[in-house]
């Protein structure tokens, strides 16, 4: 499926095709950003008439919009308790403009038979032992700083999610994905693909060995750089607990500039996306250790554990 995307340059994180910078973050780009987040500065609409000719926004503009988005979220939470998840219409992340629903989500409640209260199961056939070591998937060792990333997958009750699938993908140490739509002129590493998966153990624990990914540029705005991150995909016992997210590394100076991390409007919630360096987890003369626990939102599978009958 990756081939197909070449025909369409309008996709964001392809860095560096700057032939048409206005393109990538896609159409939404120049739409009056205020229309989603309703920040006041939209009183001055960007160049009416030919929005697509509008200059790619500056970091300053994006940073203002991030601040406005955060202020709006704070104002909407008079009790000081903001949403944990990002709003889907976060204007500074340009690609969100045409890809979020405008209707409110429809609640499904009080239906114990809802399919989403159970979820897919995975097993020994779905994962090989090597899948969790991203440094051993090729003939040679990848370049970069070897790291161990481990943590637990928990439900909001604190109960561990056992035997469930954790999938990760990431850029290599230079900040390049092994994906042909990634044209960032940083070297590919023939010894690194950047894909891993494992099943959690009985304590909900996952562990990956990989290399620390590099930061990479994208075309949301001028001089846009993603802080180093690892993408995570997680399943709970219920499909409604599904989560795809990104893990960041502590102390990254790019945090405040990144509209994707900042799409999470609450600082406390953003902090939960950042792994902790754990010296006790570092292995002497081998790898640095990062610890990141993940808490899945949503209802657990109904207590009459339907997995038992599968």
């Amino acid at each position, binding site marked *: 499926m990756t081939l197909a995307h070449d025909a369409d340059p309008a996709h964001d994180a392809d860095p560096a095709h700057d032939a048409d910078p206005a393109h990538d973050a896609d*159409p939404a780009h120049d739409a009056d950003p205020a229309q989603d987040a309703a920040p006041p500065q939209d009183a001055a609409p960007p160049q009416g008439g030919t929005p697509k000719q509008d200059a790619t926004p500056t970091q300053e503009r994006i940073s203002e919009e991030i601040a406005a988005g955060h202020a709006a979220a704070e104002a909407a939470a008079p009790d000081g308790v903001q949403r*944990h998840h990002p709003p889907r219409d976060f204007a500074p992340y340009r690609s*969100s403009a045409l890809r979020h*629903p405008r209707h409110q989500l429809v609640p499904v409640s009080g239906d114990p038979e809802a*399919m989403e209260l159970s979820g897919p199961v995975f097993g020994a056939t779905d994962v090989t032992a090597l899948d969790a070591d991203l440094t051993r998937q090729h003939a040679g060792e990848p370049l970069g700083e070897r790291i161990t990333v481990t943590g637990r997958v*928990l439900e909001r009750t604190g109960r561990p999610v056992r035997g469930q699938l954790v999938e990760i993908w990431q850029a290599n140490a230079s900040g390049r994905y092994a994906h042909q739509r990634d044209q960032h002129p940083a070297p590919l590493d023939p010894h690194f693909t950047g*894909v891993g998966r494992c099943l959690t153990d009985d304590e909900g624990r996952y562990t990956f060995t990989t290399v620390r990914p590099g930061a990479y540029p994208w075309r949301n705005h001028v001089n846009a750089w993603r802080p180093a991150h690892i993408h995570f995909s997680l399943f709970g016992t219920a499909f409604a607990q599904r989560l795809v997210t990104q893990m960041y590394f502590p102390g990254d100076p790019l945090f405040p500039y990144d509209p994707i991390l900042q799409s999470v409007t609450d600082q406390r919630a953003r902090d*939960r996306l950042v792994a902790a360096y754990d010296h006790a987890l570092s292995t002497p003369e081998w790898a640095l250790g990062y610890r990141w626990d993940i808490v899945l939102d949503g209802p657990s599978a109904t207590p009459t554990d339907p997995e038992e009958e599968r």
Partner: protein
Amino acid sequence: MKPPPDDQPTDRAPNRMPGHAPGHTRHRANQPRIPAQGRELPPTPSQTVGPFYGYALPFPGGGQVAPVGHPGAITLHGTVRDGAGEPVPDALLEFWQGPGRPGSLRRDPVTGGFAGRNGVDFTGFGRVPTDADGGWVLRTLPPPPERGYVSVCVFARGLTHHLFTRVYVGAPPPDDPLLAALPEERRRTLLAVPVEPGLYHFDIHFQGGKETVFLVFDGTDESDESESPDGSDGPEQSDGLDGLDGLHGSDG
């Protein structure tokens, strides 16, 4: 290679869980609460799947959920579109209609690649990336008539937090509580359109006049606010395309 030292206490509290207000303080008077003890830990926030999941999440046969040669198999297909009506070529759809078995993404221990489903077990789980035209195809078994739907979870670049919907296949159960609560125009967005025997069409619209009904489940952070008047989506009931139309021409 070397396993990480297993010297961490297994019962330690998750990191990054400072003692700030837990989610259950998020009361809104008109909302039924789940018990406080069910909300002890704040959830890890969602982040967009981004554009580069394509070599990580999809797997061969991800859309071939029906056992091979099953005479009752049906095909669901459609297109994912954005608020301007354009196809979304980088969405990822997941389908769930259990009760399932493991084996959706069986691995080949020899090559490290994918071995494909075994062709016999019904795992109930499908995963399909959209193609360059935003298209997707799922070959599966029809959901039992008393349920009538297949659950769908939608991910995409540009989508900060996945969306759930349902594909109702065939005549929906007359007492389905979700469908019963929706106005006809919105209800229709959840019904697969029969094309020919065994073939159904179902488009997903993120936005616009045909915007798909997306769902939120009890016990999720968002369910606390799904009916609150201050939700950021609240005021935007229009299609909101006026300001976007002009973007199109310059796209090509």
